């Protein structure tokens, strides 16, 4: 009898099976992931977690009996029945006591399981890409890359350079005239040959003295001396790190309802997740504005209500200030997303457009404008609502070639398609156009 301890065996043995399963159920899982992510708040939206997918997509079929026909059940626990009794069929039509019910999954129509963060994200952001403009800068403190840099006399055994060590040992042995084993052997052979021959005593004595010297020398001069030992040396080299900052601009004046804010929040969430995937370090700056703008924290940004007019330019001005203060565009990849219901004070459009063109857009990698609206507001047949002030202003900029994207979102279900459209891989987009 043997007892083996298997606990230390590498874990994750079923990982390949899991990957195969995810590949298999990809479209279903993707759907589930997108649903799940809609329910979370901005910073935890990308954690892994439980998702549930419909069972029918991943069923393994087999031959089995359908309903109908005549069946026999032998059941335990008879209390009142006698032979010949007749019993009303249970209404659900399930076979009497269910003795033939399938052991797994009988009534369960959804398959629930847990995804890790990595799996979650790769499914979530599959086939999206960032506009490829990443700026990289050397940053202090980021984890460095290690490069080979010659040899050193100290190090860990795993870095021992055998070739270099042996080369040193060899040259030292030559320099100090350590006899080779063959030379010693040859001497011994010569002595053995001469010994006992008459008249060679003197010669033998000389050889023996020589041998003694040689042996002493080979004992004193080690084969490998600590001074021979060399280790491979590595040097830390700072790695360029790409950093990103994400500006969330939002109109919080009275005309923005909670629903609209919710839509905006969803969009920011997606953007945050997406940036985090690409950049090790992502800052978020929240700027809200009415007729004046301020940088706030996330809670205030989404949940407190302000009253006042609407001056979009103030938000852009604030963003410009923050960029100038803390995020020099040479070092940072700047992404901005603006959400608004499209209202802007008359007369502010000019200023907004100028600020965007001259100051904000040149500093940004990407600028997206999301116009949120109430569901059904625009869908009224016969009463098409004209484009809003801000939309008109931005449209002119875009048609003049400004590098920004704009979309309208009316409903929760639009968020993801709009997001995907904004960040779809360019190859795919062109294919779609062709």
């Amino acid at each position, binding site marked *: 009898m043997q007892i083996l301890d298997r606990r230390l065996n590498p874990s994750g043995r079923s990982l390949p099976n899991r990957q195969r399963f995810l590949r298999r159920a990809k479209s279903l899982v993707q759907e589930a992931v997108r649903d799940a992510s809609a329910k979370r708040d901005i910073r935890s939206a990308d954690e892994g977690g439980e998702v549930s997918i419909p069972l029918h997509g991943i069923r393994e079929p087999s*031959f089995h009996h359908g309903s109908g026909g005549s069946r026999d059940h032998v059941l335990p*626990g008879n209390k009142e029945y006698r*032979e010949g009794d007749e019993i009303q069929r249970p209404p659900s039509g399930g076979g009497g*006591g269910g003795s033939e019910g399938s052991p797994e999954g009988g009534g369960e129509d959804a398959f629930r*399981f847990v995804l890790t963060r990595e799996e979650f994200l790769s499914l979530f952001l599959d086939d999206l890409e960032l506009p490829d403009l990443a700026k990289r800068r050397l940053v202090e403190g980021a984890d460095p890359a290690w490069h080979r840099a010659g040899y050193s006399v100290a190090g860990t055994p795993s870095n021992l350079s055998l070739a270099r060590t042996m080369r040193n040992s060899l040259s030292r042995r030559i320099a100090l005239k350590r006899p080779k084993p063959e030379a010693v052997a040859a001497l011994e052979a010569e002595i053995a040959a001469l010994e006992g021959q008459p008249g060679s005593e003197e010669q033998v004595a000389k050889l023996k003295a020589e041998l003694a010297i040689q042996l002493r020398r080979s004992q004193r001069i080690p084969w490998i001396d600590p001074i021979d030992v060399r280790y491979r040396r590595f040097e830390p080299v700072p790695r360029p790190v790409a950093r990103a900052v994400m500006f969330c601009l939002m109109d919080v004046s009275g005309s923005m309802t909670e629903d609209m804010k919710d839509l905006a929040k969803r969009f920011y969430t997606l953007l945050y997740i997406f940036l985090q995937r690409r950049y090790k370090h992502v800052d978020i700056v929240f700027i809200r504005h009415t007729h004046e703008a301020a940088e706030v924290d996330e809670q205030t940004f989404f949940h407190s209500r302000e009253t006042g007019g609407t001056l979009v330019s103030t938000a852009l001005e604030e963003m410009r200030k923050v960029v100038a203060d803390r995020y020099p565009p040479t070092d940072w990849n700047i992404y901005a997303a603006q959400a608004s219901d499209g209202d802007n004070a008359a007369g502010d459009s000019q200023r907004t457009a100028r600020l965007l063109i001259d100051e904000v857009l040149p500093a940004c990698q990407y600028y997206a404008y999301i116009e949120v609206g109430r569901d059904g507001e625009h869908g009224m047949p016969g009463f098409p609502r004209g484009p809003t002030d801000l939309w008109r202003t931005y449209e002119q900029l875009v048609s003049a070639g400004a590098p920004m994207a704009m979309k309208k979102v009316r409903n929760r279900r639009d968020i993801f398609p709009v997001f995907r459209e904004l960040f779809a891989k360019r190859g795919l987009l062109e294919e779609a156009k062709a």
Partner: protein
Amino acid sequence: MNAPVSTPGLLYEGADWDFSTLMRIHDACEEVAVRDLGLDFYPNRIEIISAEQMLDAYASTGLPLFYRHWSFGKQFAQHEALYRKGLRGLAYEIVINSDPCLSYVMEENTATLQALVIAHAAFGHNHFFKNNRIFREWTDAKGILDYLEFAKGYIAECEDRYGEIAVERVLDSAHALMNYGVHRHHRRTIDLRSEEQRVRERRAHDERMYNVLWSTLPERASHAIGADEVEKRRAMLQLPQENVLYFLEKSAPRLAAWQREVIRIVRNVAQYFHPQRQTKMMNEGCATYVHHRILNTLHREGQLSDGALLEALHSHTSVIMQPDFDDPRYSGINPYALGFAMMEDIERICREPTEEDRVWFPDFAGSGDPMPTLRYGWSEFRDESFILQFLSPHLMRKMKFFHLKDDAAQPVLRVDAMHDERGYRRLRRALAKQYDPAWMDPDIQVVDVDLAGDRRLILEHRVQDGRLLEEQEARQVLRHLASLWSYDVLLREIDPATGASLREHAVSPPR
């Protein structure tokens, strides 16, 4: 070193254990198993695993190493989600029918649970695996681990060479037909060398008997394809064939060699598990009875403390709990409950039989020691025949069995038999039938191939009691079958009495 045992004679104290404790437990159990129960088992190998590894083992149907397939990942994800939420505990052990016999035990188990598990798996199941006729005839305990190793490597190699998708497609199809990948009866093994010899002898005979005069006879005008031809074709293809995977492996026209090998692997694994399906109830009954006897004996001899025995009994009783049919927890007859009850009942009949038992079981009623009878039962029967042979009226009354006839054509269910003088034999037959795989699985066979025409494969489902196949899934399985066969497939559901076709499913292979 382990802590010294303060009470002399006790194997262990408290819940903690280490390897030497396990060793002591094993040796003590072994002594009882050999001395009192006369068991005969493979050498044991006990492996300690963690909860995650137990989940791993679950996912690959309990086997320690298995090839890769998405369905195992699915299983793992499902078990893991349930386990994480605390909805389901894990088994205390998994035991593999191999030589040496592998038992996996969880590290979380207390010392008492380890004793229970060792007695249950390493001696109960182990004895059953080694001695039961079906296991002896159909599985190769010595070779299985090597074979699984080979299978895993082979399929990984195929994935490298032909791509994961291509391999997965074959595996999916083969898995769908897994229940139809077993030989249920021994075939006449055709030895290739003697086959060749026979052909040579036949030709020599023909040459000896050749007479040129025969060639002068006028030939028959037309040579229609007669029944002979069909018979010959069927004989050459070894039809009818109930092992659908075997048929595909040998005869599917367009499979590559590696695809045939993959099918063969699935088929061999299915064959390896087939005895377990047929003996589930007995196997668990045997193991439960053995651990019950061993632990009680150890307690009587002062090697197990009272507390430990109570803890073991607590697990034991929850395992053999059988809810009544109208209980919401009821999900079929618990194989542990029925199995253990039958073994105990046999012990009772041997030790203190009633008059009724003497009439029903004249062979062994009152024989004294139950072990010879039990050992004989464990080695020579499977669930179905074991029930037919050993289920006593006493037990039927105790379990309050009754037989319910559910005919879809009737508006009501009818109680056909119950635990009384008139019903015992019918009840027992009906219960045995419930354990008969030939009754549980639809009887589907390959019956013909249209070799002269469009190579359509024809299967028959011999419908029993009007139970037709579930249509949706049957079509899906047939689609898998067609993709392996590469030509059209037709499944006829026929009434075996009249030969009339009740329903037909025709499927073309995916293009």
